[in-house]
């Protein structure tokens, strides 16, 4: 193509684009700005942040904003450290870690939405961490066993998110305080959405008198299955496996009440405003509901250089120090800090009071237990579906479910 040399066209396009009206180059500006910052050799740490199952766009945005604020605060005090954070959906996290690990570029830090660290440890993606006697004071003693495996500390918790119930104040004046009320309200036409993943249903399972994680006791799932069947017979109670459907249902008004966690509250508050109400899960025949707790947990990558590991540890300890924990707890208002030295204004902040109480009643699983639970979940689900859909009776499914739930035998 004579007279139309492609190389010249390419060169010509650059100045043309730059000269055209109102031209701004944010990436270039950012690059030039970044170049002026002194970054020490090997002072970059990579962080992979798991986004919660069922997180929507706003949730992720809020999460990024909160995390970026924490990074900025850390870099203000440590200007020579660079932190690169990537937010990965929970379903893609393990694949992403594997991808990076097989290239020798595994992350220096992983921030999980729970303490399910064992799958990463088994595949050598993470390493254990040692804390000295002063560092360990930043974490409540009662929490630490849930992060230990064979005497090694595999992760460090940063915040605890309890399971709650969220409801629409305009539609439901008084949320159900127990399971009977829940059934009655549903019969009166109020719609309820319940997360049917087994880890999210544990408050029902244990609350109905069944026992889990007792190696010597065979679980009895009958009461639990009968209630599931009873609930599903109500036309306004729905069981959803995708938490996103529950959230969007509450926002759109499809549901009046749903099971939720403290982590959802900030984005639900933005979307629903004063219509949003949060309460404890309904009481059980055996007493208060005792759901599992989710702990945001830091894990340390196994491939970090010595300096990167030290910097990663510094950043993690920064995130659990008393000032950061207090500031973040007040800012989030929906999570319980792990540092024992913090006193929060529980009397004036109702949400904080609620999540604090829920965290006290809830149960944080050990690494082995949560690992077992997440591996068992996919096996359990078809059985639960058979009961919920009415294809099988609770009596016929209970023995099979009990066999699956034999914790000691599976270990």
């Amino acid at each position, binding site marked *: 193509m004579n007279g*139309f040399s492609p190389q010249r066209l390419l060169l010509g*396009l650059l100045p043309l684009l730059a000269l055209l009206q*109102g031209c701004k*180059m944010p990436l270039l500006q950012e690059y030039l700005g970044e170049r002026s910052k002194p970054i020490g*050799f090997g002072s*970059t740490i990579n962080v992979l942040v798991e986004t919660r199952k069922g997180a929507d766009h706003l949730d992720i945005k809020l999460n990024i904003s909160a995390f970026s604020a924490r990074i900025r605060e850390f870099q203000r005090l440590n200007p020579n450290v*660079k932190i690169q954070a*990537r937010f990965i959906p929970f379903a893609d996290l393990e694949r992403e870690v594997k991808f990076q690990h097989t290239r*020798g*570029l595994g992350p220096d830090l992983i921030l999980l939405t729970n303490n399910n660290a064992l799958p990463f440890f088994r595949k050598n993606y993470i390493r254990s961490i040692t804390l000295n006697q002063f560092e360990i004071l930043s974490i409540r003693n009662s929490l630490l066993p849930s992060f230990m495996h064979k005497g090694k500390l595999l992760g460090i918790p940063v915040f605890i998110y309890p399971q709650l119930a969220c409801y629409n104040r305009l539609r439901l004046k008084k949320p159900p305080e127990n399971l009977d009320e829940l059934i009655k309200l549903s019969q009166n036409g109020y719609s309820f959405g319940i997360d049917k993943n087994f880890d999210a249903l544990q408050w029902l399972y244990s609350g109905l008198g069944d026992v889990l994680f007792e190696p010597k006791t065979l679980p009895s799932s009958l009461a639990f299955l009968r209630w599931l069947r009873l609930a599903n017979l109500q036309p306004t109670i729905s069981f959803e496996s995708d938490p996103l459907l529950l959230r969007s249902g509450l926002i759109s008004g499809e549901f009046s009440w749903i099971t939720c966690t403290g982590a959802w509250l900030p984005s639900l508050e933005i979307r629903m405003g004063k219509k949003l109400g949060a309460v404890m899960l309904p009481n059980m025949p055996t007493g208060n509901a005792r759901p599992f707790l989710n702990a945001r947990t830091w894990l340390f990558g196994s491939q970090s250089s010595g300096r990167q590991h030290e910097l990663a540890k510094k950043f993690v300890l920064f995130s659990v120090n008393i000032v950061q924990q207090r500031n973040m707890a007040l800012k989030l208002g929906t999570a319980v800090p792990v540092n024992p030295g913090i006193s929060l204004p529980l009397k004036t902040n109702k949400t904080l009071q609620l999540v604090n109480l829920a965290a006290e009643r809830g149960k944080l699983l050990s690494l082995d237990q949560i690992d077992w639970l997440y591996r068992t979940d996919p096996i359990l689900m078809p059985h639960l579906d058979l009961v919920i859909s009415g294809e099988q009776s609770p009596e016929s499914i209970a023995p099979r479910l009990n066999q699956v739930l034999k914790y000691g035998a599976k270990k």
Partner: protein
Amino acid sequence: MNSLSDIFNDLLSDTFRVPVLLQIVTLVLALIFWFRLKKLLNLENRLWPLEKRYKYISSFKQLADELLLLFVSRIFSLALDNLTGVAGLAFFVTGFYGLVFISRFLIILLKFYAPIAVVSRFDHSLLRPAYVIVGFLGVLSQVSDLPSLLASPVAMIGGDNFSFNDFLLLLLGSYFLVTGTALPAWGLTWLASNLFELSKPAFRATELIIRYLIVAIGLISILVTVGVNYTFLAAVSGGLSVGLGFGLKEVFSNFISGLWLLIEGAVRPGDVLLLENGSGEDPCEVLELGMRATTLWRDRDNVELVVPNQLFFTQQMVTYSGVRDRYRRGQVLIGAAYRHPPEQVISILEAVAATVPRVLAKPAPKGLLLRYEDSAITYAIRYWIEDPMNGISVASQVGIAIWNAFSLEGIEIPFPQRVLHMDSTVSNARTQI
């Protein structure tokens, strides 16, 4: 969200991790091992079985060392993976090298079936830059979050945010459209030529039209994909109109002339024509009809003339390959003495011309008596040739053949002679002369 500086710092930090260093060392060891093995086997220089019988073997032989390197590096990477479970970067490097190797193989194969010039241009202008870009983006995808980087805003033009992705599409898409469409256009034209039995010039004109069409549609698609808004396009068009009115007038005029010539078919690649000025008696072959200018080739001195397209609109041209046919009529003038009968001379001329290899038998050469000159009768032998570019060389051959035939037949080619008479009364006449 990562920026380029972040990625660079990240890369620096990670390079000195033990697993990364191990992979680099493994690849270096593979390279050293390959170098030794290559010298030992000497694959490219030795004679291969059946090489003499099959031309393919000798053509593909040049890839032997590259294939060996691919195998060696892959085996070393697999060994590292088995030992440590960490060889992703080494696999990426060997995978990318494998991709390059396959494309080298295909290029050699293509050269057997498509014009070498087109394939070479495709290789140099498209494939090789593509390796660099794919390699660069590939490395970025290994060490950082490429989708985030591509989605990050890079410029704001006309109120629209353009991401790195848009920018790459605009820049590289345009480049690859312009450079990479030659081979597909040739392929489509080849199909069309099989269907419609196109002549050589029509083939080249069709090829160019198809290419321009692909480029135009592609550029519009890129602009639509990038999401350039219509107001902005209108503003750019307005700016271009002003530019066209002043500096770009000639360029635009030449471009339109080129398109018109292609559509009209008055000047097509492969045509042979004489320009009114400049190239004298030598015809030129049209090599390429470009967007701004046409490239002509002149056989005499093997030069390429770049003629602005507009010139074909303003000047008269002589073409030998117009609508009727591509034959050119040549003529050689010769003088014969008065004593030879014209019928004899004409029959010799016609017979001689018919024996020259590149002179066509049909229409048959035609001898003519043109004039009675002072010292000779001037005859012309007119003949037809197939390739208009061979006019001078065929005329030379015909002239030589006539001279030989006249010598054989005793026909004199007279020429004016001057007789000097020396005056003996002038004593120093000889000296004066």
